[in-house]
């Protein structure tokens, strides 16, 4: 915690998935809070529950037990429509495999979240160009994802996540498909945006390159918080 106002509060979170005739418990009583502007990571081996926790925070999934509040919304009680509204207005996602819309240009990919928010054309143009400038891809606005390198694709994904200037961005293994140089470039970009836009960035990762940039690390092991370390404070 960096002492700023809390935007995520998690209390006694348990998540179980049906598995065959029984159940698999992915999260076992997680209690955490995240403040505005944090640059934090959920760190742990595969199967430790990082992505499940990220999905619940991102209102893509719901808790089995416990209570999760994100930006004033109780995730367990949101309707599908309200959850979509929360994601649309307040949460950006960055994926391991970029997940760009292949037939659309860089500009159109970044523009998409603004179309959902029904911003007008000139407003969209300005916000998209700002976002492309943050990630250094202004000259690629008309390119399509297949014409870009992996690093460029991930920068487009970052621009897409940040273009609506959400208070919260969730990044699931964002550097897993990138080489070291591109990973550092991406992380520096995200660090800069975190600092300049005061966006809370929450990673799920086990990549040492990412861990090196994190200011707070929550180590998960078998669905429990093993350690919660604040590594560095600005």
């Amino acid at each position, binding site marked *: 915690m960096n002492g700023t106002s809390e935007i995520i509060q998690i209390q006694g979170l348990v998540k179980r998935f049906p598995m065959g005739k029984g159940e698999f418990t992915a999260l076992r009583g997680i209690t955490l809070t995240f403040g505005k502007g944090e640059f934090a990571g959920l760190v742990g081996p595969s199967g430790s529950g990082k992505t499940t926790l990220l999905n619940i925070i991102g209102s*893509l*999934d719901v808790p089995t037990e416990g209570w999760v509040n994100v930006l004033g919304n109780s995730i367990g009680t949101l309707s599908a*429509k309200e959850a*979509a509204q929360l994601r*649309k207005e307040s949460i950006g996602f960055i*994926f391991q495999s970029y997940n*760009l819309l292949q*037939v659309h240009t860089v500009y159109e990919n970044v523009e998409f979240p603004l179309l*959902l928010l029904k911003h007008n054309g000139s407003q969209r143009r300005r916000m998209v160009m700002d976002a492309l400038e943050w990630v250094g891809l202004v000259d690629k606005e008309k390119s399509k994802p297949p014409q870009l390198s992996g690093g460029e694709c991930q920068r487009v994904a970052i621009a897409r996540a940040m273009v609506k200037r959400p208070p919260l961005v969730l990044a699931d293994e964002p550097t897993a498909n990138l080489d070291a140089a591109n990973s550092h470039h991406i992380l520096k970009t995200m660090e800069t945006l975190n600092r300049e836009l005061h966006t809370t960035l929450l990673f799920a990762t086990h990549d040492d390159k990412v861990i090196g940039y994190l200011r707070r690390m929550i180590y998960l092991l078998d669905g429990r918080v093993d350690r919660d370390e604040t590594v560095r404070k600005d």
Partner: protein
Amino acid sequence: MIRFLIKGLIRDKSRSRLPVIVVTLGVMLTVAMHAYVKGFMGETLEMNATFSYGHVKVMTRAYAEEAELLPNDLALLEVSTLNEELSERFPAMEWAPRIRFGGLIDVPDEQGETRAQGPAVGLALDLLSEDSNEIQRLGLPRALIRGGLPKERGEALISEAFSQRLLIEPGDDITLIGVSMNGSMVMHNFRVAGTLLFGMDILDRGTLILDIEDARLALDMPDAAGEIVGFLPGGFYDDATARHTADAFNAAYQSDPDEFAPLMKALSQQGSMGPYVQFGQVWAGYISLVFVVAMALVLWNAGLLGGLRRYGEIGVRLAMGEEKGHVYRTMIYESVCIGIAGSVIGTALGLFVAWLLQEYGINVEGLMEGASLMFPTTIRARITPPAYYIGFIPGLAATVIGTALSGIGIFRRQTSQLFKELEA
């Protein structure tokens, strides 16, 4: 947003061009096949009606029992009176007395000696009356190969193949050797006015066509006719109407015990036409239905696969905050656009193919050799009103239903599950 979706639809060839091509092909085949089946069934039926059975036929009861033997000794008498009665009771229908007969054609040489002989199947109908429609009904002007149509009494038409076999030219004299109504042998001379080619093996083998008055004179059948054929208004056979007409006519003679009392039979009640009419009605529908269903399954599947293939894109859109309902609706709108585009193009192409088949047909002469039922040697399609919309059943409905079903799968999945599949 709409522009964004349209751009995606147009640029993603596997989402637009490919499904439109699949739908177009499916619809084109459905439309062409439907028209072809209709054409084959309808043309065969009408051909048999025109040349042999009529839509309904009036005969004596005794003649009806042995109609395939052409028993002119059991023919109708006082035909002009009966014809008037028929015209009065069923004024919308066209009635035509005919005599069908068998005989031998003898071709004399310059000395009057027999040069060639051959068996003929004769058909006598009203060729010379101004108010007769028989020449047009049988399509004689179209079938004429050499010479001309009879203009006066004593002239006959024979099939081209028959004329070549017997070395007969238009203008040559021939002798019909046959049996009179009373059972005696008769001989009568005719002049060949022209030769005909119908394109139907059964008619082209050895047909002789006479004016009915000449046949009455030759066969000693004054004011008699083997049968009076009737044709429904509109020119197309309708079994229910034909049977209803026959029942109405026969009711008036029900109490008459005379075996020479007139009896009317619908086309489906004659010879082997019953099963064929049933086949025409039921199987033409089944064939079209099976084809429509098969195409519907193909297109349904295409719609389903199209939807499933887009899990990744849909997962991203949901993550961005698009509502599931909106995603689902846009998928349906897209499939409607693809269905309409494919159905319209496919129907247009299908109608074009059907038109070509209607105009030129497919020659199946080799398959029809020796057929006893009249089949056209060239099978043509017939474009009927359903051809304009039948393609939309598989083209639009199946595509949309396929997409809707695949969309329901997406709808029911947890968003996080979609994400896992998206990441996989």
